[in-house]
């Protein structure tokens, strides 16, 4: 028995998806934003909050957000999952929801998130805390952890600042095609490379945005979804991996747990990287995109910098990556993982407008939590791929 052979391939599906309040959403609390995204996703699915018996929640700073959310909705779900593996939480939620749905324990799962960090504090709201061994050193985290990984990747593989800037440039290229994106103005490689260093080698332009935003996804069993009003998006595979919490304990600074979760999720789905039409991954920092493309198998280890510099991931390239503009240019409300799922759903439904990838039938979402600590990968398809 193995994860790959036991995962309920295609037996559960996303039937509703929504975003709300991307960019700035003054006057709303994080709880209200998550609630509104949840209502919109249920509207999209043609379902009501009264149908929800599985609730999956990780709010920015309310550790008991799952309880607050159930109370707000006025429901008493059979299953509340408050799993908090950072920005990967929501992809883990989808895996757990798939298992509970497939087992028949629940019928309708709602995964929802919201943050008002930009209008409320203007800073990244992070649940990351330092240990007594790390905190006294005064390192700015999480950026410092990613910067250490970037420095090591440059040392081992010759990756350059220009390579990293190409990740940000490609994200902006996609954001310009997405009316929902927060940063859509033109930029150049030179402009990106001239921004202030935050934690060498990473500059401001290597860091994700600080925005408000909310998202939600509704899942049911695929056989129950036939009456859905939108094209259903089956979950073909999913897997996760936690390798450490603090950056000093990362087994190898240049290899993330995506090298475990990615191949396992793709094996569960019965697909290989060549089958995937679009990749939505959590680009908290530009180095993430380089590391995850390598670890998920889209290019060899060490070649990620040269791969992104070739233009492969930008609009018009061979591998569409972060077609919404990603955390770097679309939105980043603290824990971004759920937005990788919503964008994969929109692409597979064919509702991505100017940024639509033609003929797509398989999309991959990848979430990251902590300092490259938690990795979770989902593979979505169309009904034809089940």
């Amino acid at each position, binding site marked *: 028995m193995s994860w790959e052979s036991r995962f309920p391939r295609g037996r559960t599906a996303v039937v509703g998806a929504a975003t709300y309040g991307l960019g700035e959403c003054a006057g709303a609390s994080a709880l209200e934003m998550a609630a509104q995204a949840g209502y919109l996703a249920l509207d999209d699915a043609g379902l009501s909050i009264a149908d929800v018996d599985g609730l999956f929640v990780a709010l920015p700073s309310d550790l008991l957000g799952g309880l607050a959310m159930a109370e707000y909705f006025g429901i008493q779900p059979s299953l509340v999952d408050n799993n908090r593996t950072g920005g990967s939480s929501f992809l883990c939620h989808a895996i757990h929801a798939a298992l509970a749905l497939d087992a028949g324990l629940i019928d309708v799962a709602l995964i929802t998130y919201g943050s008002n960090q930009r209008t409320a504090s203007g800073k990244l709201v992070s649940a990351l805390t330092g240990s007594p*061994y790390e905190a006294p050193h005064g390192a*700015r985290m999480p950026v*410092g952890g990613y910067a250490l990984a970037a420095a090591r990747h440059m040392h081992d593989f010759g990756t350059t600042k220009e390579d990293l800037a190409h990740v940000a440039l490609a994200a902006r290229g996609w954001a310009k095609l997405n009316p929902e994106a927060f940063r859509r103005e033109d930029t150049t490689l030179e402009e990106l490379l001239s921004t202030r*260093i935050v934690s060498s080698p990473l500059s401001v332009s290597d860091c994700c945005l600080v925005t408000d935003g909310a998202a939600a996804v509704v899942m049911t069993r695929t056989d129950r979804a036939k009456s859905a009003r939108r094209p259903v998006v089956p979950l073909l595979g999913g897997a996760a991996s936690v390798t450490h919490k603090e950056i*000093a304990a990362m087994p190898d600074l240049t290899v993330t747990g995506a090298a475990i979760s990615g191949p396992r999720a793709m094996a569960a789905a019965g697909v290989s990287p060549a089958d995937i039409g679009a990749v939505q991954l959590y680009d908290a920092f530009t180095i993430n995109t380089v590391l995850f493309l390598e670890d998920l198998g889209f290019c060899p280890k060490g070649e990620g910098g040269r791969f992104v510099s070739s233009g492969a991931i930008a609009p018009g390239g061979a591998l569409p990556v972060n077609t919404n503009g990603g955390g770097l240019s679309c939105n980043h409300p603290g824990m971004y993982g759920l937005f990788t799922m919503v964008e994969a759903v929109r692409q597979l439904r064919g509702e991505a407008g100017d940024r639509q990838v033609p003929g797509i039938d398989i999309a991959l979402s990848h979430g990251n939590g902590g300092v490259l600590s938690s990795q979770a990968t989902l593979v979505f398809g169309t009904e034809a791929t089940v």
Partner: protein
Amino acid sequence: MEETLHAEKRFLALLADGSFWLQRDPATGLAVFPPRLRAPGHGGQLTEFQPVSGRGTIHAVTVQPNRPPKPARIIVLVDLDEGARMLSHMPDASPEDVAIGDPVVARIVTEGETPMVVFDPAP
């Protein structure tokens, strides 16, 4: 009742006394950091705390600029000769003189309430 100092407090108490000591995993012979009740990965017994040399090698470095006159913070991951990797900083080094692969030596300082191990370039 007498308090039993568990691994975290024992390590910090040793540091406060000026001793940089770590447990070893008998299965590998390598030092373990952060300190633990049992060995990470397999749960076997660890040795008592024993001195380490304080010598190590920079595995990765990032420099975090501050508003002058506050100097930039040089954050490093150091591989100790005894095998453990730890996050630290180099308060007295110049950013341009610190690189991956450089040898460093440990020193104990207390800036706030908690003592910590920082590093200097090896002489």
